[in-house]
């Protein structure tokens, strides 16, 4: 009987963030006229898409009981590289070499750079035992510096119209960024729930020693996870760049915090092993809806930050209270 109740409670915590989101939506629908419209809904989703991409990668990292503070900077660098490849290509005068990029080529280059930066994070964390907080904090600064170097501190603007589709286009009545986020989320859900890698991620976060004693290659899993987080940050960067038709050197500043907030509100434990990508998606949408709703309610942007912080605290307090009862 105790087990049945436990399972039931388990289900309840799984839907906790979904319930919170529904309550929030109902409240805003009652309070404002504009909230509950298709346009506004798609608007919220479009604005949330970038955070969903980043936060999905962050979820994988946090599930292994790590953290990635570098995603905002990686986003900026990869956006800039994609824009740079697209606009200027790569020219190496000494070798009399010039490489031009198609849109697809530039996008892949950006994602590749993101994956490499993430791989480097994972490498320093596993091989040199640098705590994830420190390793990715260093990368936050390094990647931002590289962005400034690469762009010389100037935006890279006026990119191709084909490229603009990624951030501004629509397909089947839904914005392209939302499609991208959906694909990212579905893949991540597949990986975490159906594959060996996903199982290892949960096992390492749940008990790294036991994972090691089970013969799991912890180094490989962790490096993969950080590389994925980097690649997903790059995808976020490409969406942002495309949307603005410009790569801003200071893009993505503070995005890591929004991503961590989404992960935490979604019920993933920062000590690892517990949580889900779905939870994070709910968390990201809750933040999006909250931002949107507070604007519609004419609440000052300063108060919006206070409210967002309070919601993060509340989510964790509720989570912890649930744990204690168990």
């Amino acid at each position, binding site marked *: 009987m105790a087990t049945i109740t436990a399972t039931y409670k388990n289900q309840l915590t799984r839907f906790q963030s979904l319930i919170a989101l529904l309550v929030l939506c109902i409240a805003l629908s009652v309070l404002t006229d504009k909230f509950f419209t298709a346009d506004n809904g798609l608007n919220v989703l479009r604005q949330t898409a970038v955070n969903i991409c980043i936060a999905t990668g962050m979820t994988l990292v946090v599930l292994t009981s790590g953290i990635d503070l570098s995603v905002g900077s990686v986003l900026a660098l990869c956006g800039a590289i994609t824009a740079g490849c697209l606009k200027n290509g790569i020219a190496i005068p000494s070798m009399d070499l010039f490489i031009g990029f198609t849109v697809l080529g530039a996008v892949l280059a950006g994602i590749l750079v993101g994956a490499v930066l993430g791989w480097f994070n994972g490498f320093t964390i596993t091989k040199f035992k640098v705590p994830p907080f420190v390793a990715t904090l260093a990368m936050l600064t390094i990647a931002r510096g590289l962005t400034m170097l690469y762009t010389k501190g100037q935006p890279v603007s006026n990119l191709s119209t084909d490229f603009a589709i990624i951030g501004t286009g629509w397909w089947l009545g839904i914005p392209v960024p939302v499609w991208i986020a959906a694909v990212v989320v579905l893949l991540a859900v597949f990986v975490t729930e159906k594959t060996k890698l996903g199982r290892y991620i949960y096992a390492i976060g749940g*008990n790294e020693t036991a994972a090691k004693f089970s013969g799991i290659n912890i180094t490989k899993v962790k490096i993969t996870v950080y590389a994925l987080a980097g690649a997903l940050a790059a995808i976020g960067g490409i969406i942002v760049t495309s949307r603005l038709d410009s790569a801003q050197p200071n893009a993505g500043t503070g995005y890591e915090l929004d991503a961590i907030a989404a992960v935490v509100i979604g019920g993933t434990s920062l000590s690892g092993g517990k949580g889900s990508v779905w939870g994070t998606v709910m968390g990201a949408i809750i933040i999006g809806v909250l931002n949107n709703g507070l604007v519609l309610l004419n609440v000052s942007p300063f108060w919006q930050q206070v409210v967002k912080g309070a919601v993060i605290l509340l989510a964790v307090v509720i989570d912890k209270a649930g744990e204690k009862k168990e």
Partner: protein
Amino acid sequence: MLVAKNITKKFSGVTALDNICLELLPGKVNAIIGENGAGKSTLMKIFSGVHTEYEGEIILDGKTVHFSSTKEAERAGIAIIHQELNLVPYLTITENIFLGHELTNAWGVLNKTKMQEETRQLLDRLNLDIHPNTKISSLKVGQQQLVEIAKALHVDAKVIIMDEPTSAISDKEVNNLFTIINELVSQGKTIVYISHKLNELFQIADRFVILRDGTTVNTGEMKTTTHDNLIQMMTGRKILYSRDEVAEEKKDDLLRLKSIYLKNVTGSDEILHNISFTLHKGEVLGIYGLMGAGRTELMETIFGLHPRFSSGEIFLDGKKLKIQSPSDAIDAGIVLVPEDRKLQGLCTSLAVRPNISITILEQLDRWGIMINKKRETTLSKQYIQQLAIKTFSTETLVKNLSGGNQQKIVLAKWLAKKPMVLLLDEPTRGIDINAKSEIYKLIKQLAAEGLGIIVVSSELPEILAISDRVLVLCEGELTANIPIKEATEAAILKMAIHKN
């Protein structure tokens, strides 16, 4: 005088202390002796206020006391020096001694000069010529131990409990420690001295108290007893698990270890010294050793957890293995059920199913990319049934199961891998008696199917109940190889205590 009267202590149904009675006299060194698990440390934890719930009475100098915290015990004058020292490594000697009762001036600012001066006096009393501002981390173990004693003197402890104080120090430091103990005794302090090293006890102790299975079996004067006498008293218990007829000797070699050495992390000390033995097919090989003998380290070395610090050769079925990591060992067919199931064996926040299948996900592959969940569930159910694991379903979280069932899950996850050699480190620690005998039955059954099994245990009855042959480890060396026919508790314990 410190008296324990009818003390009983249970841990989730398992009795650790059973109606224990003993007296510890002032001005004497009172030795407490007993095999692993006899209840020594549990009793000491009650004396020092770590365990606060128990039945019975503790009487200190004629007054009944019941400590609700270690601080209270300390205030009453009982200090304990643990085997693993309790000092903060990056603080100085002074800061450690005054931790929790710092001296301050009227403004609430630390009075460092006064604390330093008092520390110097304490160190002088112990003939320790070190500056009070030295960091603990730069002291040798023996010196750290003296700092612990200084701490006890500082709170003016009447009773000083020392748990295996000589386990990590050199002979010279031992002599120094004994001089200090003698001085403390002459000042009328009660010294409680716990040690496995009987030779040492004849040197330093005045009285002995022998514990066995949570009760006091004997007390007396050290002068009136002998080495063999003590061992007899420590082991003379009735057989809890009867053996079936002794099976025939196994002859086919399975696993052979040749000259295994293991150094500690700094390379300064040997944890295992020249270990060689053979495990046969279908054999259950028991390995017994006292705390710190290197039992767990031996298992971990075979399993590839210490590749950088170990040397020697391991052969399986005549083939030399190169084991650099657990996955090498697992691939070769050697698996380890570790000592601490919660810390090393299981992801307790996950369900039963993923815990069982974690070792064999390759075999559950579907289309090269995903896990075949149906087969995974079937397989989990099969092991739940085979090992009689009591769980509501395959999706129950492991943390909601009892210790015995958790242990069976660790076994299941390795049996699923179809190993050739099963290393079991303390397979029944902390589980109830029924689950214990179920696991014993399982071990015998697996051996009968041809597996080679090594069981490391700190419980003599367990070793005798399940082994076909017994190896004894003492301070990192193999001291005996006894066929089960000749094995008795006394014979095993003797080899575990003596080197040579």
